[in-house]
């Protein structure tokens, strides 16, 4: 299956099950959870279902486009369901069937895998979902986000798009995935993942392992932090402040890949980001609860 077909089917599936279809947030980030649609969506009492694809950058996983299994940037399909439905596992399995995975022929297991995002003050419990021995999704019941207890609890499903695509196609190399087909007056041209992404993998790996300027990035990190607190403290603007926190997070990941962060420094830096994201979450909740008509708002059955 082409990667774009896989994404379209998942979006269709979740739209039909009552999810808003969101869009990737246009800032670098390490995980789909960081998209404000999930981060703020998981906080507070408001019912909220959303699904979207998010490119996730993990600089340390960069392999210069040479490793057939690992990427600097991969695609996550992210689904957030708040409150977590009683049939959430069944819904998830139905989504796999929508991809053409016939459960009668495969082995599906949910193995314990608890999730934690220290920069977001977030953790949850859940599973890695194993299909015939391969992890294809993360499944999490959020317990805390932004340092606050989640009430109600959301369920977060994260699909590893490339993984599932390789697996369905029996491919031994990510770059052999077909992205889709370009149809022109002259004919039909299948386009591979290699054509779309390999050069990008090479350059971004080289950037984060070799060329990123350390002094500049440290400077950025400090500047983003300062900017964020100014926005939050002076103006109460939690969304623009949160963007700065996302930039801090990615800058930190680049510095980490460059080997510029010692193990002793690491927890302190993570805490600086967490302090911000948690403050943003609190500011969001305060504003939401102050809005007229939010208290005890009835949900239509």
């Amino acid at each position: 299956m082409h990667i774009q077909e896989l994404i379209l089917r998942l979006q269709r599936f979740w739209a039909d099950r009552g999810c808003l279809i969101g869009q990737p947030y246009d800032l670098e980030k390490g995980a789909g959870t960081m998209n404000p649609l999930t981060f703020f969506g998981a906080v507070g009492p408001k019912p909220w279902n959303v699904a979207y694809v998010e490119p996730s950058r993990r600089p340390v996983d960069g392999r210069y486009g040479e490793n057939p299994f690992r990427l600097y940037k991969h695609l996550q399909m992210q689904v957030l369901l708040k409150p977590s439905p009683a049939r959430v596992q069944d819904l998830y399995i139905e989504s796999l069937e929508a991809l053409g995975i016939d459960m009668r022929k495969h082995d599906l297991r949910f193995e314990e895998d608890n999730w934690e995002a220290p920069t977001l003050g977030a953790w949850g419990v859940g599973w890695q979902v194993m299909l015939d021995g391969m992890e294809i999704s993360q499944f999490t019941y959020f317990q805390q986000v932004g340092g606050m207890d989640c009430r109600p609890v959301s369920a977060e499903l994260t699909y590893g798009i490339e993984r599932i695509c390789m697996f369905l196609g029996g491919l031994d190399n990510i770059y052999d995935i077909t992205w889709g087909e370009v149809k022109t007056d002259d004919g039909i041209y299948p386009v591979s993942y290699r054509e779309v992404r390999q050069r990008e993998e090479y350059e971004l790996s080289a950037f984060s392992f070799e060329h990123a300027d350390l002094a500049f990035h440290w400077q950025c990190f400090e500047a983003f932090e300062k900017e964020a607190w100014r926005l939050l403290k002076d103006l109460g603007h939690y969304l623009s402040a949160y963007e700065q926190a996302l930039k801090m997070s990615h800058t930190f990941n680049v510095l980490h890949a460059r080997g510029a962060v010692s193990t002793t420094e690491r927890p302190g830096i993570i805490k600086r980001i967490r302090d911000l994201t948690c403050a943003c979450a609190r500011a969001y909740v305060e504003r939401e609860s102050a809005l007229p008509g939010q208290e005890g708002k009835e949900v239509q059955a």
Partner: protein
Amino acid sequence: MKNLLLEIHCEEIPARFLEPLSEEFAAAFQAWMKESLGADLAVERFHSPRKLAWRVTGIPQRQPDQREVQVGPPQRMCLDEQGAPTQTGLKFAEKWGVPFDQVLFEQPAGKKEPVAVATLVKAGRPTLELLAEVLPRLVTALHVPKAMRWGHSSFEFVRPIRNVVALFGEDVVPFELDGVKAGRTTLGHRLFHLDHPGPVPVASPEAYEAALEGAGVVASFEVRRERLAKELDRLAAEAGGRVVADAELLSTLALIVEVPRIIAGSFPADFLDLPKEVLVTSLKEHQKAFCVEDAQGALLPCFLTAANRADDPEGFLKSGNEWVLRARLYDARFFYAEDRKEPLSARMEKLKHLTFQRELGSYFDKTQRMMALSEAIAGALTLDGTDGKLAAQYAKCDLVTLMVGEFPELQGIMGGEYLKREGAHEKVWKAVKEHYRPDASDAPIPGTPLGGVVALADKLDTVAGCFSVGIIPTGSKDPLALRRAGAGIVRILFENGWNLNPLRAAALALEAIGERATKPRAETLAALEAFFRDRVAYQIEQAGYAAPVRRAALAAGWTDLVDLKARCEALAAFGDDPRFASLGQSAKRISNILKDETPSEDLDATVLQAPEEKALAERLPWLESNPGHASLLAGLADLAGPLEAFFTAVMVKCEDPALRAARLSLLFRLRKAFLRIADFSQWQ
């Protein structure tokens, strides 16, 4: 009598919690039955990835009647002179709701006169009613280590509860868990429900396993494990080898599948040039798969893992697992190749950035201390100090390799492997490889002397270092596993028969730590002394010596482990010679008499008068002649009688100061001779 079945069906419960939760509930319910029903009954346990279930056979249907005795005012106040009830008497009867003629007058022990006694009989309640109260209470009270909430609810459990079966005979026990009503139907394997929508009826508690088996689930963990083990053996033999055994992995597999089935797959043979440990670990950690080895212990290019379904209709399970494993092994080979691009020793610089502990510095700092300590220990044991220093220098380098980053459990093993490939001396690479041993109480200690030395240096630095900055294990809190490290130190010394005082060695380690210590040295040493004494006590307990032997031997000194072992051996050989009990009595008397005395060692034997004391004095030179543990013990046993006779005949603290001094000296020297082997006052 009726049978009870309780099944809680959740979303997938983490494998590591199944057994503890199952046991905890069983124990709590058993205790409840004993207390509330007076029934001492066994609880059968079942658990599988989505189910915790328990069954009890033969529970009484009604709680026994409860008798309660109420004691009231004295008889004289309840009855008047004619024997008719008084106001007080009637009030007492009324208070407890019994007719006055059922009030008896009895004289309980300790009372001076008869008093009014009313016996109340509380009818026992139906068990079904009690179960409806106790089952949800006990489930809610379970200790869930990582509890979660879900949906809108504030109920906390290990994973969301989706179905509850509670049958008492044919009756449903009426209760709810977080809004889920207990009923008489369960859920089977997901695969089963694809073709059989709707719940699975459980006709009776006895029909539980059959009902589940019919729905694709094997209820019993033990049955699943046994079937998996058989399948593993069969498929390994088919592949021309045997399973690389791993009891822990087998149990894990039995906990993550509802139906036991092994998938056999293969991987490209060129991955076999990776070290065996890497393959075994990679297969286990990433894929929960077993390796297969031939008769010589060489791995075959195949693996065995569990699947949660009975068949593999289109071969997807096999090809899927093979696909993932290839990806994993590709990564392992990448790490292995990358790691060997530079020699292991080139990692020393990177260790500066790897924190060991905040106050104690980096692994580079630790390495420096381990080098000095290894050299000193090797020297003390008359081993080659240079080799010890070299092995210690390399010991921690693999912590910053990619392979150990991926598989922390390969620490040491990878360092040894890389050094071996670099052509390091066998003594050195083996020492590096073994220096984390023993990593569990039943794991072996390092097999080579140098490995033992580096292991001691590592553990001593950790223990003494942590103590010196105030990290001391208390109660159940021991985050850095210092007790395990301490036990390792003692085991290495004990099992090697190395004559090295652990306290002196720890003092050496403290010297290396120097200024980094934040606690006063004397305080740290005192804490270390108590700590090592406990570890030594534990060690000789593990070695199987009886309690009196351990107490008496330990009390006479424990820092020389070689001597301690010899003394324990000698004491144990005498077993329960009754004369030691008498000797123990006498030793206690001696201790009491000497408590506030400071007698001279010079014994003026000429002033002794009684034949009993002269007899003891005559034995002194031999006792003090260092006759060896076994014969000293024999001599002491023979002394039991004369000592008894001495205490019967002689009053030690007599009027005559010279005689008194001589007797005290005699006892003082006797005790000193005893203490060379044991403190018999601790023999009981």
